[in-house]
Protein backbone atom coordinates (compact mmCIF):
# COMPACT_ATOMS: atom_id res chain seq x y z
CA UNK A 1 0.00 0.00 0.00
CA UNK A 2 2.83 2.31 0.98
CA UNK A 3 4.76 1.45 -2.19
CA UNK A 4 1.68 2.09 -4.36
CA UNK A 5 1.25 5.46 -2.73
CA UNK A 6 4.90 6.28 -3.34
CA UNK A 7 4.71 5.32 -7.03
CA UNK A 8 1.51 7.25 -7.54
CA UNK A 9 3.03 10.36 -6.01
CA UNK A 10 6.21 10.25 -8.13
CA UNK A 11 4.85 10.76 -11.63
CA UNK A 12 5.33 7.20 -12.83
CA UNK A 13 8.65 6.66 -11.10
CA UNK A 14 9.03 3.47 -9.13
CA UNK A 15 11.64 4.15 -6.42
CA UNK A 16 11.00 0.78 -4.78
CA UNK A 17 12.12 -0.95 -7.97
CA UNK A 18 15.09 1.27 -8.82
CA UNK A 19 17.76 -1.05 -7.48
CA UNK A 20 16.29 -4.10 -9.20
CA UNK A 21 15.70 -2.32 -12.51
CA UNK A 22 18.64 0.07 -12.72
CA UNK A 23 21.02 -0.79 -9.88
CA UNK A 24 23.50 -2.75 -11.95
CA UNK A 25 23.49 -0.23 -14.83
CA UNK A 26 24.10 2.60 -12.37
CA UNK A 27 26.82 0.65 -10.62
CA UNK A 28 28.45 -0.18 -13.99
CA UNK A 29 28.45 3.52 -14.90
CA UNK A 30 30.02 4.54 -11.60
CA UNK A 31 32.44 1.62 -11.46
CA UNK A 32 33.92 2.51 -14.85
CA UNK A 33 34.64 6.01 -13.61
CA UNK A 34 35.72 5.42 -10.02
CA UNK A 35 38.72 3.46 -8.77
CA UNK A 36 37.03 0.93 -6.49
CA UNK A 37 33.77 -0.99 -6.26
CA UNK A 38 33.22 0.47 -2.79
CA UNK A 39 33.52 4.04 -4.05
CA UNK A 40 31.12 3.21 -6.89
CA UNK A 41 28.57 1.67 -4.52
CA UNK A 42 28.74 4.68 -2.22
CA UNK A 43 28.14 7.09 -5.09
CA UNK A 44 25.26 4.99 -6.47
CA UNK A 45 23.64 5.05 -3.04
CA UNK A 46 24.05 8.83 -2.82
CA UNK A 47 22.55 9.18 -6.30
CA UNK A 48 19.59 6.93 -5.51
CA UNK A 49 18.82 8.86 -2.32
CA UNK A 50 19.26 12.23 -4.06
CA UNK A 51 16.96 11.07 -6.86
CA UNK A 52 14.40 9.91 -4.33
CA UNK A 53 14.49 13.26 -2.54
CA UNK A 54 14.13 15.21 -5.79
CA UNK A 55 11.68 12.82 -7.47
CA UNK A 56 9.21 15.69 -7.83
CA UNK A 57 11.50 17.25 -10.46
CA UNK A 58 11.15 14.25 -12.81
CA UNK A 59 9.13 15.55 -15.75
CA UNK A 60 8.77 12.30 -17.66
CA UNK A 61 10.53 13.62 -20.78
CA UNK A 62 13.30 11.05 -20.42
CA UNK A 63 13.20 7.45 -19.27
CA UNK A 64 13.57 6.63 -15.61
CA UNK A 65 17.03 5.18 -16.23
CA UNK A 66 18.26 8.19 -18.20
CA UNK A 67 17.09 10.47 -15.42
CA UNK A 68 18.76 8.36 -12.73
CA UNK A 69 22.01 8.20 -14.70
CA UNK A 70 21.85 11.99 -15.03
CA UNK A 71 21.67 12.32 -11.24
CA UNK A 72 24.45 9.75 -10.88
CA UNK A 73 26.65 11.59 -13.36
CA UNK A 74 26.66 14.66 -11.11
CA UNK A 75 27.46 12.55 -8.07
CA UNK A 76 30.37 10.87 -9.88
CA UNK A 77 31.79 14.26 -10.89
CA UNK A 78 31.43 15.43 -7.28
CA UNK A 79 33.35 12.37 -6.13
CA UNK A 80 36.10 13.00 -8.68
CA UNK A 81 36.27 16.66 -7.66
CA UNK A 82 36.54 15.67 -4.01
CA UNK A 83 39.63 13.59 -4.73
CA UNK A 84 41.31 16.11 -7.03
CA UNK A 85 43.73 17.06 -4.29
CA UNK A 86 45.15 13.56 -4.31
CA UNK A 87 48.88 13.80 -4.96
CA UNK A 88 49.59 14.30 -8.64
CA UNK A 89 52.73 12.40 -9.50
CA UNK A 90 54.14 11.07 -12.72
CA UNK A 91 57.29 9.05 -12.83
CA UNK A 92 59.86 9.80 -15.51
CA UNK A 93 59.49 6.44 -17.14
CA UNK A 94 57.89 6.86 -20.55
CA UNK A 95 55.42 4.18 -21.60
CA UNK A 96 56.76 4.03 -25.13
CA UNK A 97 60.49 3.92 -25.80
CA UNK A 98 61.83 6.15 -28.52
CA UNK A 99 65.30 6.42 -29.95
CA UNK A 100 66.12 9.69 -31.68
CA UNK A 101 62.43 10.39 -32.08
CA UNK A 102 61.54 7.02 -33.60
CA UNK A 103 60.07 3.90 -31.99
CA UNK A 104 62.90 2.00 -30.33
CA UNK A 105 61.26 -1.30 -31.23
CA UNK A 106 59.17 -2.03 -34.31
CA UNK A 107 55.43 -1.87 -33.63
CA UNK A 108 53.59 -5.15 -33.91
CA UNK A 109 50.01 -5.46 -35.00
CA UNK A 110 47.59 -7.24 -32.71
CA UNK A 111 46.44 -10.70 -33.82
CA UNK A 112 43.45 -10.70 -36.20
CA UNK A 113 41.58 -12.85 -33.72
CA UNK A 114 41.34 -9.90 -31.30
CA UNK A 115 37.92 -8.33 -31.74
CA UNK A 116 36.38 -5.13 -30.43
CA UNK A 117 34.63 -6.94 -27.60
CA UNK A 118 37.94 -8.36 -26.40
CA UNK A 119 39.65 -4.98 -26.66
CA UNK A 120 36.73 -3.44 -24.76
CA UNK A 121 36.99 -5.92 -21.88
CA UNK A 122 40.76 -5.55 -21.77
CA UNK A 123 40.51 -1.76 -21.73
CA UNK A 124 37.95 -1.94 -18.91
CA UNK A 125 40.30 -4.10 -16.84
CA UNK A 126 43.39 -2.10 -17.80
CA UNK A 127 41.79 1.19 -16.71
CA UNK A 128 41.77 -0.14 -13.15
CA UNK A 129 45.51 -0.79 -13.31
CA UNK A 130 46.39 2.77 -14.33
CA UNK A 131 47.68 5.28 -11.78
CA UNK A 132 44.68 7.15 -10.36
CA UNK A 133 45.46 10.56 -11.91
CA UNK A 134 45.89 8.97 -15.34
CA UNK A 135 42.68 6.98 -15.02
CA UNK A 136 40.65 10.03 -13.98
CA UNK A 137 41.99 12.13 -16.86
CA UNK A 138 41.26 9.38 -19.40
CA UNK A 139 37.79 8.69 -18.07
CA UNK A 140 36.67 12.31 -18.07
CA UNK A 141 38.31 13.31 -21.34
CA UNK A 142 38.10 10.17 -23.45
CA UNK A 143 35.19 8.24 -21.98
CA UNK A 144 32.83 11.08 -21.08
CA UNK A 145 34.16 13.40 -23.78
CA UNK A 146 34.27 16.45 -21.53
CA UNK A 147 36.15 19.43 -23.02
CA UNK A 148 39.77 19.70 -21.90
CA UNK A 149 39.05 22.93 -20.02
CA UNK A 150 36.25 21.33 -18.01
CA UNK A 151 38.43 18.35 -17.12
CA UNK A 152 41.22 20.67 -15.98
CA UNK A 153 38.76 22.49 -13.70
CA UNK A 154 37.37 19.28 -12.23
CA UNK A 155 40.78 17.75 -11.59
CA UNK A 156 42.45 21.06 -10.79
CA UNK A 157 45.35 20.49 -13.18
CA UNK A 158 46.89 22.49 -16.01
CA UNK A 159 46.15 21.73 -19.70
CA UNK A 160 49.75 20.56 -20.11
CA UNK A 161 49.35 18.09 -17.26
CA UNK A 162 46.04 16.90 -18.67
CA UNK A 163 47.50 16.14 -22.10
CA UNK A 164 50.51 14.46 -20.54
CA UNK A 165 48.19 12.25 -18.48
CA UNK A 166 45.97 11.44 -21.47
CA UNK A 167 48.93 10.70 -23.72
CA UNK A 168 50.72 8.54 -21.19
CA UNK A 169 47.50 6.87 -20.13
CA UNK A 170 46.75 5.83 -23.68
CA UNK A 171 50.34 4.75 -24.24
CA UNK A 172 50.14 2.62 -21.11
CA UNK A 173 46.83 1.09 -22.19
CA UNK A 174 48.36 0.28 -25.58
CA UNK A 175 51.36 -1.30 -23.91
CA UNK A 176 49.25 -3.40 -21.52
CA UNK A 177 46.99 -4.57 -24.33
CA UNK A 178 49.95 -5.33 -26.61
CA UNK A 179 51.49 -7.51 -23.90
CA UNK A 180 48.18 -9.24 -23.27
CA UNK A 181 47.42 -9.84 -26.94
CA UNK A 182 50.98 -10.92 -27.70
CA UNK A 183 50.51 -13.78 -25.26
CA UNK A 184 47.10 -14.47 -26.84
CA UNK A 185 48.82 -14.70 -30.21
CA UNK A 186 51.51 -16.98 -28.80
CA UNK A 187 48.86 -19.30 -27.46
CA UNK A 188 47.02 -19.25 -30.77
Amino acid at each position, binding site marked *: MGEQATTASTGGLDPAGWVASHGEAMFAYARLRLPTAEAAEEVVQEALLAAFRSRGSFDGRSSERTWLIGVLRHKVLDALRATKKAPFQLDDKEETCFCKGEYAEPMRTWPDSVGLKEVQESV*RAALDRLPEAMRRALVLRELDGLPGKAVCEILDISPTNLWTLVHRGKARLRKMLSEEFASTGDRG
Partner: protein
Amino acid sequence: MIWIRTIWYILTLRCEEADRLRSRARGGELTRTERVAERLHRSLCSSCRKAAAQLDQIDRALEHLADGLSEGRAPDWDEQRAARLDEAMRRAQQES
Protein backbone atom coordinates in the same frame (compact mmCIF):
# COMPACT_ATOMS: atom_id res chain seq x y z
CA MET B 1 58.45 33.01 -42.65
CA ILE B 2 55.70 31.33 -40.70
CA TRP B 3 54.82 29.12 -43.67
CA ILE B 4 58.43 27.92 -43.88
CA ARG B 5 58.29 26.89 -40.23
CA THR B 6 54.94 25.18 -40.85
CA ILE B 7 56.25 23.18 -43.81
CA TRP B 8 59.43 22.34 -41.91
CA TYR B 9 57.32 21.07 -38.99
CA ILE B 10 55.18 18.94 -41.31
CA LEU B 11 58.13 17.44 -43.14
CA THR B 12 60.31 16.73 -40.14
CA LEU B 13 57.74 15.29 -37.70
CA ARG B 14 59.13 12.23 -35.90
CA CYS B 15 57.30 9.21 -34.48
CA GLU B 16 57.59 10.49 -30.90
CA GLU B 17 55.76 13.73 -31.64
CA ALA B 18 53.28 11.96 -33.96
CA ASP B 19 52.52 9.60 -31.08
CA ARG B 20 51.72 12.56 -28.82
CA LEU B 21 49.54 14.18 -31.48
CA ARG B 22 47.49 11.01 -31.92
CA SER B 23 46.68 10.95 -28.20
CA ARG B 24 45.20 14.43 -28.52
CA ALA B 25 43.47 13.86 -31.85
CA ARG B 26 40.19 12.57 -30.47
CA GLY B 27 37.87 15.45 -29.77
CA GLY B 28 39.39 17.71 -32.41
CA GLU B 29 42.14 19.13 -30.24
CA LEU B 30 44.75 19.32 -33.06
CA THR B 31 45.48 22.30 -35.26
CA ARG B 32 45.25 21.85 -39.02
CA THR B 33 49.04 21.84 -39.31
CA GLU B 34 49.33 19.14 -36.65
CA ARG B 35 46.67 17.02 -38.37
CA VAL B 36 48.38 17.30 -41.75
CA ALA B 37 51.80 16.57 -40.26
CA GLU B 38 50.54 13.49 -38.43
CA ARG B 39 48.72 12.15 -41.49
CA LEU B 40 51.68 12.67 -43.77
CA HIS B 41 54.05 11.06 -41.30
CA ARG B 42 51.70 8.11 -40.82
CA SER B 43 51.40 7.56 -44.56
CA LEU B 44 55.18 7.13 -44.69
CA CYS B 45 55.79 5.21 -41.44
CA SER B 46 54.60 1.64 -40.91
CA SER B 47 55.23 1.70 -37.14
CA CYS B 48 53.03 4.75 -36.80
CA ARG B 49 50.32 3.12 -38.92
CA LYS B 50 50.31 0.14 -36.55
CA ALA B 51 50.39 2.36 -33.46
CA ALA B 52 47.54 4.46 -34.88
CA ALA B 53 45.49 1.33 -35.59
CA GLN B 54 45.96 0.18 -31.97
CA LEU B 55 45.01 3.58 -30.64
CA ASP B 56 41.97 3.61 -32.89
CA GLN B 57 40.87 0.26 -31.42
CA ILE B 58 41.36 1.60 -27.90
CA ASP B 59 39.38 4.75 -28.74
CA ARG B 60 36.53 2.67 -30.18
CA ALA B 61 36.57 0.44 -27.10
CA LEU B 62 36.33 3.54 -24.88
CA GLU B 63 33.42 4.81 -26.99
CA HIS B 64 31.62 1.49 -26.69
CA LEU B 65 32.24 1.40 -22.96
CA ALA B 66 30.77 4.89 -22.63
CA ASP B 67 27.76 3.95 -24.75
CA GLY B 68 27.29 0.57 -23.13
CA LEU B 69 24.93 1.78 -20.42
CA SER B 70 21.97 -0.12 -21.76
CA GLU B 71 23.88 -3.36 -21.22
CA GLY B 72 24.51 -2.22 -17.66
CA ARG B 73 26.84 -5.05 -16.75
CA ALA B 74 29.49 -4.72 -14.07
CA PRO B 75 31.84 -7.58 -13.16
CA ASP B 76 31.78 -6.78 -9.44
CA TRP B 77 28.03 -6.28 -9.05
CA ASP B 78 26.48 -8.87 -6.73
CA GLU B 79 23.41 -9.60 -4.63
CA GLN B 80 24.93 -8.21 -1.44
CA ARG B 81 25.51 -4.85 -3.10
CA ALA B 82 21.96 -4.85 -4.42
CA ALA B 83 20.62 -5.75 -0.96
CA ARG B 84 22.56 -2.92 0.71
CA LEU B 85 21.30 -0.38 -1.82
CA ASP B 86 17.75 -1.73 -1.51
CA GLU B 87 17.95 -1.38 2.26
CA ALA B 88 19.10 2.25 1.97
CA MET B 89 16.20 2.99 -0.38
CA ARG B 90 13.72 1.24 1.92
CA ARG B 91 14.89 3.36 4.86
CA ALA B 92 14.59 6.55 2.81
CA GLN B 93 11.06 5.66 1.78
CA GLN B 94 10.05 4.89 5.36
CA GLU B 95 11.47 8.19 6.57
CA SER B 96 9.76 10.26 3.89
